[in-house]
């Protein structure tokens, strides 16, 4: 079977595709969060503003990921 024949046999349901997108978004959010926190802690010189920013950023990101997760099912 050639490559394109093999690809054409793969079928994705919309739910599987959404799950894949969700996984990619969750991974992206986690990676970007680590980079953000590294930069803010190392170069932002600490303080209450950064602590609040981290809480707000993570809170909203987690809420949106939660809504996306329940949106699939």
């Amino acid at each position, binding site marked *: 079977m050639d490559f394109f024949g093999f690809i054409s046999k793969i079928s994705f349901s919309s739910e599987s595709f*959404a799950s894949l*997108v969700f996984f990619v978004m969750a991974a*992206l959010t986690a990676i970007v969060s680590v980079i*953000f926190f590294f*930069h*803010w802690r*190392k170069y932002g*010189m600490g303080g209450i503003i950064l602590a609040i920013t981290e809480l707000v950023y993570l809170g909203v*990101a987690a809420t949106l990921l939660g*809504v996306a997760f329940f949106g699939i099912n």
Partner: protein
Amino acid sequence: MIKFEPGEEIIKVVRRHYLVMIPVILMILVLAMLPLTIYAILIADFLPLDPSIKNFVEDFFVRWKSFGYSVWLLLLWIFFFIEWTDYYLDLWVITNRRIVDVEQKGFFHREVTSFSFGQIQDITVETHGLVETLLKFGTLHIQTAGHNREIVIRDAHHPEKARSLILELQQKSKEVQ
């Protein structure tokens, strides 16, 4: 991380005015409304679309609105914090001995320049237009003896105050010498 010498004290931290974030916030708000606008346009009666297409669009939005919209908002949320990080980490630290210019150019590109008050040759404040004048922000230029480039902080909050402070500290450092 900026390493300070023993006895060195931070006198002032100069950042860009928070108003520079307003265009970014407005753009993000427009982008956040974009899917809803597209949906409203597609299902509106004035578009000559086939009823089957309209039904497909309606079904698609009903089924995937929570998932799709939250993923879209999450992307915008991350984009906003990339911009905020660039804004927040771009600063000048004025200490009792020197000025440290930190320029964040993206996540993994950062330039830190420091120069003593003795190296300062000229300080210029530029304020353009009504908005900058009323809201007291502008561009600070410092010409130094030891650097090839001019050191600039754009849209600095209260640039006149920063300039006066730098001149005052420069005078004090001359007196100590």
